[in-house]
């Protein structure tokens, strides 16, 4: 008698749940393995399996706080729409909200805290800032930079997600992004897809919620601290968007 492997409870966004439910049975390619996270190619869309110490990307299955050792598993496969790590099913016990909260720009009375971007970010911002983002600028951003999530993509994610939070559509930029997704890593392309839907990291959602409140500088700092430069990229992408949308940044309070 085969003892069924113990189920591992996870939480996920409704879109991640839907993608898994629609996935074909069979082995899944591992894109990247880290200490607290593993990233998988699920039919051309990246799904992460992340422990509580990892960055909670919106395209991931999230483990409860105490589980982390199962991530160095040998086999990964989908069976009946459920992801299995070494035969242990990752059962989605809870659905999470990954969309940034609604941003009421009109209510944003206080000006935003200014912060000097890091050199790498400053370079990008200088390249595309100062005027509204256009498809040409998108072309210079997608896939630009090193690592699993290039900095140019992070900037774009921040810009897109902020527009979604503010309820503003950006069809031209969206199209430009979609056309270039093949130029970057699968994970980054997936995160851009998430951003197009307004789906973000918890730190980004917290930053949006904190805009115009006394908590804003702390939230901005927390976002900027995410990853190596990713958080800074997201933050300044959001700033670019806010500038375009009329909020003033760096002006005296």
């Amino acid at each position, binding site marked *: 008698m085969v003892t069924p492997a113990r*189920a591992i*409870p*996870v*939480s996920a966004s409704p879109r991640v749940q839907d993608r898994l439910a629609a996935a074909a049975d069979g082995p899944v390619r591992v894109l990247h393995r880290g200490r607290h996270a593993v990233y998988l190619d699920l039919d051309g869309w990246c799904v992460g399996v992340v422990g509580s110490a990892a960055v909670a990307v919106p395209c991931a299955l*999230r*483990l*409860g*706080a*105490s589980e982390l050792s199962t991530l160095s598993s040998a086999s990964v496969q989908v069976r009946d729409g459920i992801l299995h790590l070494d035969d242990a099913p990752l*059962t989605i*016990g*809870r659905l*999470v909200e990954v969309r940034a909260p609604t941003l009421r720009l009109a209510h944003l009375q206080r000006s935003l805290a200014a912060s000097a971007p890091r050199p790498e970010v400053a370079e990008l911002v200088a390249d595309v800032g100062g005027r509204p983002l256009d498809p040409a600028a998108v072309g210079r951003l997608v896939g630009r930079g090193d690592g699993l999530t290039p900095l140019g993509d992070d900037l774009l994610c921040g810009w897109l997600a902020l527009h979604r939070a503010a309820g503003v559509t950006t069809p031209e930029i969206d199209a430009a992004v979609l056309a270039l997704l093949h130029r970057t890593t699968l994970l980054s392309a997936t995160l851009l897809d998430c951003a197009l839907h307004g789906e973000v990291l918890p730190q980004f959602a917290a930053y949006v919620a904190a805009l115009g409140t006394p908590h804003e500088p702390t939230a901005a700092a927390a976002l900027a601290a995410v990853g190596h430069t990713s958080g800074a990229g997201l933050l300044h992408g959001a700033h670019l968007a806010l500038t375009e949308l009329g909020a003033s940044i760096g002006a005296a309070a």
Partner: protein
Amino acid sequence: MTTPTHVVSAGADLFADAVAAQAVDVTRVDWRPPLPGTEADLAAVVGDPRRHAANEQAVAAMLGVTARLVDVAPASEVLGLQRGQFLHAGPPITWDRASGPMRGALMGGAALEGLVADPEEAVALFESGSGVELEPCHHRRTVGPMAGVVTPSMWMFVLEDTATGARTHCSLNEGLGKVLRYGAYGPDVLTRLGWMRDVLGPLLQSAVRSVRDSTGPVDVTGILTQMLQMGDEAHNRNRAGTLMMLRDLAPAMVASGRDSTDVAEALRFIGGNDHFFLNLAMPACKLALDAARDIDGSTMVVAMARNGTDFGIQVSGTGDEWFTGPAQVADGLYLGDYGPEDANPDIGDSAITETAGIGGFAMATAPAIVRLVGGSVPDALATTRRMHEITLEENPRWTVPVLEFQGVPTGIDVTRVCRTGILPQINTGMAGAKAGVGQVGAGLVNPPQEIFPKALARLAERARAHADQSD
């Protein structure tokens, strides 16, 4: 509302399982029904609107005390103790109910004060009751180890909380073996007590005053802080404390101008008695706990004490009332040929150390003690951890290195004892049941369970009365 990152579940496992299945961390409470008959009283006391703040106040008061050694003087002076008056350890007791060691100590004390020529004659004196009075040490801001008998001519350590001027007292420790506090009253005992009265007391007074007036009084609380990091727990193990105290007082003793033979004898006496510091640790603990007395609504225990027959507690929210039950016989290791049938029931005010969060409560910091009391090192750690279940707070000054410097469990809460059935753990020496035998062993002992529901019931009465008034 944000998603909780953690849930604590008390009750059916099924709900904890359901939370875990949703990928959220859950801590399960190992809940069991409270001590029989306490449910209604627990609800009344826990529901008392004064309780939470009262307990916070009690703990703060206790932790805010720093005990300093300001004097050494005879009990007749500092306690107003008069001829024929005897203080003793534990809750109030009468001669007829007293056990062997207590009687022996009282008899020796009577002889020491010249009430009788021979200690044996004191039996008739105490039986008659004329010209003699017995009173708990606690009623006179004093504590005494084992029989804890105090007579007017005995010299007392005087500790003071400089912030409030409050004071507590304790006699000088005679040493091990056949001593008065174990109920011995032979000529050696009386001779030694005489030397302590004539030589040791005055010498210590001189040294203590000299230190007090020059560099400031010895900080006993501070010595306790350091002791706990050095393998002492201040009840059964006081070696480091004794040596630190000696270090603080020795120069002044030498410079006192007294006869160098006396000074040498005194230094040898103190240095050779690993329990000397116990008689400072105890009043330091009492000083801290006295600051927490009489706070309406507080469920914190302010004294645990035994007289060799009864075990009694006093609680902050119920004033001076003693809640008593039969003192238990300790469980542990015996010296020489002695066995359980030789042991007297629990005796002494030294449980004031556990009441303050040290002694048995700090067993984890003194793993060496566990061999003496017949346990293992994991037992010691588990005991301290278990005591955290029945206390209100951790002591920020008195910490246990091996438990990652967690503070000792502080502020025994009557409600938590009744809820969990976990009784305070005391490390103690065992006196021989026959007066004069001395120490027969050391071990672990608990208070009798019944006294906590009794205290709870009185707290509940007061809580209900308060509720009726406010309606």
